[in-house]
């Protein structure tokens, strides 16, 4: 994937710099929210809704990975961030749709239920902005 690794270092910009810092901050908030939510759910009443709670834990992992990947500027940062944002987008679309079609399977909310309606639909918008930002920073310096 990275045949041009040395050149890449010069032709791309860090994702956690400039406006990217705001993106990282918002991702960090969701990492905190999703992790706490999953922690509480798994610790208190896991048997009540195992599927929803496991999805909560999964979304928490995705947010933490995305936050770290976007904040850092290592060789693995960019592909990892791309993967995390893609999984996040697929997740919010899939879980959002499922939670509306089969609400009985989702008795308790996850961050992605109803396309993230419990969080002002930010979970739906965030991966789109993340992917756009990765694309935008994946080329030589431009005026921001």
């Amino acid at each position, binding site marked *: 994937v990275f045949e041009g690794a040395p050149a890449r270092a010069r032709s791309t910009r860090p994702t956690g710099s400039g406006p990217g*810092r*705001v993106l990282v*901050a918002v991702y960090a908030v969701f990492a905190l929210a999703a992790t706490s939510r999953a922690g509480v759910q798994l610790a*208190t009443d896991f048997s009540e809704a195992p599927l929803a709670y496991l999805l909560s834990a999964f979304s928490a992992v995705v947010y933490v990975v995305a936050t770290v990947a976007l904040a850092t500027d290592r060789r693995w940062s960019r592909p990892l961030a791309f993967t995390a944002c893609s999984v996040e987008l697929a997740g919010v679309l899939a879980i959002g749709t499922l939670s509306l079609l089969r609400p009985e399977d989702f008795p308790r909310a996850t961050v992605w239920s109803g396309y993230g309606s419990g969080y002002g639909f930010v979970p739906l918008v965030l991966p789109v902005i993340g992917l756009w930002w990765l694309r935008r920073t994946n080329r030589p310096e431009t005026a921001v």
Partner: protein
Amino acid sequence: VRPLFSLCRTAGGRPGELPWHRDRVHSPLVAAVVMLSLLALVCGVVVAVRERPPGRVTLAVTGLAALVTLVQSGVAGYDLLQGRRPPELATYVGYLVGIVVVLPLAGAWAVAERTRWSGIVVAVGGFTVAVMTARLVMLARGTGV
């Protein structure tokens, strides 16, 4: 000592005692947290609009808001130890712990790169703390989701 948040009936609550007490939700400390975190939000937006990195005032407001948030969690934790438990205890404790790290992290992240965008980072942190405090009040009242 009056409890910080209007929590539900204490473990050995007296008969006839209201399950929660509306006046306590608006304790001065909770109001101070909301005001200071929203002030941090405004400061962050203002410096970003002026295309400057966060200065002394913004960072001082952020630090003060972080400190008051810590006191709020401490006092609320003391209330918990006194036996005043909201219905969703685990979520409530999660918020009390999580809210403490938001502004210090936002401040550190903002100071690490001093651009106008750092102001927005502070603003995001202030907004988050204000929203989390509102959720804490709802959880304490027993009206949270």
